[in-house]
């Protein structure tokens, strides 16, 4: 079975001496260990996100990600949602990850048990490139991963694994009925228009 390839973004804080040069998850603030595998750990706590995590905490195996929880290492199936997020914050960088272990697959992405960064992509804006060149050089050196153009990222990542993006399901009966209704209203309006004109 192929390892899973996904795309995500990280924050790298240039002003924090402790985390500088390290990839950090923007939500959970987990620091990704250089040259090592990151293992997911459920951080949901009672009173924080809970009801659902309460079930997880009593899971005998304690494996994260639990399908009914929100824990795990997140990655998108496609690069588009990743690039959208990059435009919002100046020190957010995108890249590809390789995942394995338990993988909970969602339509837009996956939550993984184990992950390692595969590559980072160069920011698209020349201004951001200039401002972050030294920082990105430091990060890629630390993690021993390449810094690639965005257009090359997917081809590079697919050398290591495969996408587990689910096939889109057939449109639901309800949606089909709505389309039928819309068409019939349009036909009726056309007939009325014709009757008035004729």
């Amino acid at each position: 079975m192929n390892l899973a390839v996904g795309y995500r973004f990280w924050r790298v804080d240039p002003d924090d001496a402790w985390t500088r040069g390290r990839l950090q998850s923007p939500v959970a603030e987990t620091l990704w260990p250089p040259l090592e595998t990151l293992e997911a750990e459920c951080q949901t706590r009672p009173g924080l996100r809970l009801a659902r995590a309460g079930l997880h905490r009593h899971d005998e195996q304690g494996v994260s990600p639990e399908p009914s929880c929100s824990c795990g290492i997140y990655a998108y199936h496609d690069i588009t949602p990743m690039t959208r997020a990059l435009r919002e914050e100046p020190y957010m960088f995108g890249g590809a990850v390789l995942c394995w272990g338990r993988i909970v697959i969602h339509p837009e992405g996956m939550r993984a048990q184990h992950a390692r960064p595969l590559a980072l992509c160069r920011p698209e804006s020349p201004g951001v490139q200039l401002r972050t060149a030294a920082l990105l050089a430091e990060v890629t050196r630390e993690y021993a991963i390449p810094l690639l153009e965005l257009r090359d990222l997917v081809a590079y990542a697919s050398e290591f694994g495969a996408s587990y993006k689910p096939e889109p399901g057939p449109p639901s009966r309800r949606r089909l009925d709505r389309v039928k209704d819309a068409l019939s209203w349009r036909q009726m309006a056309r007939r009325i228009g014709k009757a008035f004109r004729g």
Partner: protein
Amino acid sequence: MGFTSKPVRVIEIPEPASEPLLAPEREPQRTEREEEAPVTAPV
């Protein structure tokens, strides 16, 4: 990051036996020039 939709599937991918960051090795591809090169007898 966060997903708004419910999970559709859970899979288990075994841990890679070798270093996962090494791309699978490929057979070196012969170039046209190599294929067209005339075969010369050893002198």
